[in-house]
């Protein structure tokens, strides 16, 4: 299974709606259509994708706004939720981990679940640093994107 975080999921959703929207969103401003296509390649198949309810909540808080994209957003959200997997981890799991102090609730839960997954897809440098330190295989979208800048 491939575990995905909120920002990467936002890139995926915006890309599925309209790739030109990716660079217009503050949270995904450094990415382009090329990064979306690379992400699709990494995901390979939606049924391999898993996330946690906290991630869907973060995504929805950021994308469920008014405007002309709302309908497309809801449609893509439904399609993704129907075709991917979701795992619930109680907040107490995060509270019991030392990483909670640095990563907060959602990312600590992602770090924990990533230990059972084949790949963690993230666009959060802090989460990526901690995942690497824990020997987790990471597709780090920010690291990939920054290859174009160096």
């Amino acid at each position, binding site marked *: 299974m491939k575990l995905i975080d909120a920002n990467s999921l936002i890139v995926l959703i915006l890309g599925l709606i309209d790739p030109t929207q990716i*660079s217009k969103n*503050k*949270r995904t*401003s*450094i990415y*382009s259509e090329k990064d979306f296509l690379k992400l699709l390649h990494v995901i390979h198949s939606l049924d391999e994708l898993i996330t946690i309810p906290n991630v869907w909540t973060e995504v929805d808080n950021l994308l469920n706004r008014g405007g002309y994209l709302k309908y497309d957003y809801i449609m893509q959200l439904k399609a993704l939720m129907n075709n991917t997997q979701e795992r619930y981890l109680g907040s107490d799991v995060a509270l019991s981990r*030392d990483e909670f*102090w*640095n990563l907060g609730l959602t990312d600590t839960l992602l770090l924990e679940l990533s230990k059972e997954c084949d790949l963690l897809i993230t666009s959060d*440098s*802090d989460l990526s*640093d901690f995942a690497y330190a824990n020997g987790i295989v990471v597709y780090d979208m*920010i*690291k990939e*994107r*920054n290859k*174009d*800048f160096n």
Partner: protein
Amino acid sequence: MSITNTHNIDLKKLFLIAKDHIIDFLNTGDYQPDLRLEEAKFNEEEGVWDLVISYLLKNENILDNAELSPLNIALGQRKFERIYKKVKIDKEGKLMGLFMYNK
């Protein structure tokens, strides 16, 4: 030539301007601090680019050979820490300021 909004080319140019200043400021020698561009948005109100840059630094408050105590860990201290900074660059590519940034 002013930096406007041709996304990919501009981001690289902006990142390199910020990187040059931050590397100079950090003075890390041979250590590569994994400098990254995290966000980049043109601030219409101020007419400047707002960039968020991160880098990974050794925590100088922790001794080289010291193991982290449970108290260090409980306080979120790590041997390395990622620092985030906001950088403002004008349309002409001049760095206007480097600011503290809380993610």
